[in-house]
């Protein structure tokens, strides 16, 4: 075994993941599809339910994109742009199953692996090493294995750290073979000519860098003293400075799927603007039930409860949280606080999205007894409700208020991440 001097980090991004899974699942298109030619795919889009607000394009195949279809476009517009467009409803559980299996393949191929999202993950291997003498060849082999087994194309960026691997991945999109490696000594030469908008993770900060600092390229950002960046962006200034110099100290966390939760948060976008307090309360209570159930399943309880409202047009709103004297995962203890937050901060505008969060978590290994409530009885009660729901589904036991027109739980129970399961 040769002496390792560094690790190479890889970032995998699966191409148009939801659409690719749907295309791969349909034998009609199997014959003509080729790994290196995505024009052999049909023009297909995965779209939400047209009857509700979710009637938008969630994912589109490269062929559909070339015809003018874009993610987040309304279904009607997409069909105008591409009349031949094949539309399918999302099957989220299928995508999650395929995702976990692809991730497993990556996990088994390299010494370190870390998931990032449903269609992205990181891996790492030592360099130089006898096991991976040619990094690009190793990445290509993985890419071909994923294609052979799942008929899903992916692209891979290789670099000395996670952030650079993500940036290299962007270049891989435009590179035949789908794999790009930025060795340590070439990182800055590759990075600095790129436009500042291409710096991953900056979001609106890229606009500030352009307008306030006159930056056009990442190289321009690298020339700004870190103090000035810190003045403008706070702690993010330091992050931006590091990234512009090709540095990212983020480690690999292989067990991230099993790391205890830092917090639980559930959010729903409503089918219309809710203007009545009673209607909003129905949804708040439903989300609180979901958050508490997740906490109980993980054996955790939280001290801080948060409420977020997004107003009509999905613009504006607030997020406020309150810390309680002791941790809990029982809705009846948390709901009054959420109502107080609602009454204090809601300005009466129409509400289009609601979120409830629970954090400052501790392990639920001891009961906080109360003089006024029969805590062991309530604990048994919720355990029973959780068991019934786990066995017969989320709607097997629900609150009567969820049967009101404002209730969303029956709709949500059929979905994953807001899309059809």
């Amino acid at each position: 075994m040769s002496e390792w001097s560094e690790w190479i980090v890889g970032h995998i991004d699966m191409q148009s993941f939801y659409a690719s899974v749907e295309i791969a699942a349909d034998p009609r298109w199997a014959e003509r599809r080729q790994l290196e030619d995505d024009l052999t795919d049909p023009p297909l889009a995965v779209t939400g339910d047209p009857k509700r607000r979710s009637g938008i394009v969630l994912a589109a195949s490269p062929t559909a994109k070339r015809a003018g279809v874009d993610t987040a476009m309304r279904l009607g517009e997409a069909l105008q742009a591409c009349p031949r467009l094949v539309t399918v409803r999302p099957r989220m559980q299928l995508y999650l199953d395929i995702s976990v299996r692809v991730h497993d393949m990556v996990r088994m191929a390299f010494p370190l692996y870390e998931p990032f999202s449903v269609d992205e993950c990181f891996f790492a291997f030592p360099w130089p090493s006898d096991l991976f003498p040619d990094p690009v060849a190793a990445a290509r082999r993985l890419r071909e294995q994923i294609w052979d087994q799942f008929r899903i194309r992916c692209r891979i960026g290789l670099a000395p750290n996670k952030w650079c691997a993500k940036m290299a991945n962007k270049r891989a999109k435009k590179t035949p073979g789908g794999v790009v490696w930025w060795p340590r000594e070439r990182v800055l030469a590759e990075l600095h000519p790129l436009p500042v908008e291409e710096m991953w993770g900056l979001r609106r900060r890229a606009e500030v860098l352009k307008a306030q600092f006159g930056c056009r390229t990442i190289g321009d950002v690298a020339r700004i003293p870190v103090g000035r960046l810190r003045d403008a962006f706070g702690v993010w200034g330091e992050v931006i400075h590091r990234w512009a110099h090709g540095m990212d100290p983020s480690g690999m966390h292989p067990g991230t799927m099993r790391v205890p939760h830092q917090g639980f948060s559930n959010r729903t976008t409503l089918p219309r603007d809710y203007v009545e307090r009673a209607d909003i309360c129905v949804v708040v209570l439903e989300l609180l039930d979901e958050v508490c159930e997740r906490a109980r399943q993980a054996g955790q309880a939280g001290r801080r409860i948060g409420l977020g409202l997004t107003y009509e047009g999905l613009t504006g709103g607030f997020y406020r949280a309150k810390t309680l004297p002791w941790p809990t995962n029982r809705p009846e203890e948390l709901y009054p606080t959420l109502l107080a937050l609602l009454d204090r901060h809601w300005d009466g505008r129409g509400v289009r999205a609601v979120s409830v969060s629970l954090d400052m978590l501790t392990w639920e290994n001891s009961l906080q007894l109360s003089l006024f409530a029969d805590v062991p009885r309530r604990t048994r009660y919720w355990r029973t409700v959780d068991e019934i729901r786990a066995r017969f589904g989320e709607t097997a036991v629900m609150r009567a208020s969820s049967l009101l027109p404002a209730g969303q739980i029956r709709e949500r129970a059929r979905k994953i991440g807001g899309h059809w399961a």
Partner: protein
Amino acid sequence: MTSIRDGNIFAAMRLLLPEHRATAETYRQQRERRQPPELSEDALTEMQFILQKAAARRKPVRLTLFDQAQDEMLLGIPEIRDGRIWIHTEDGRRLPLDGRRVLRVEPG
């Protein structure tokens, strides 16, 4: 913001649905489930011989049965009735024997 200060920015920006975690956990549990060993023809024939002989002579056998958590031991006298094997235990119970769970049969 702690993650960002610590430089562990990807942990803070990760997008994993709770259902994704749950699916990964289900696959992990399936992967780690104990599987009963594949027994050879010879081993199966030998176990069948010991069981038949013990049933004919009403002698006890010691059975090792596969279980997800931990293999179980069972001591009793086998009886073959209506094409099924039953085990009469010392404490007077009569238990049906699931042949798929039998890993080993020894004279008791």
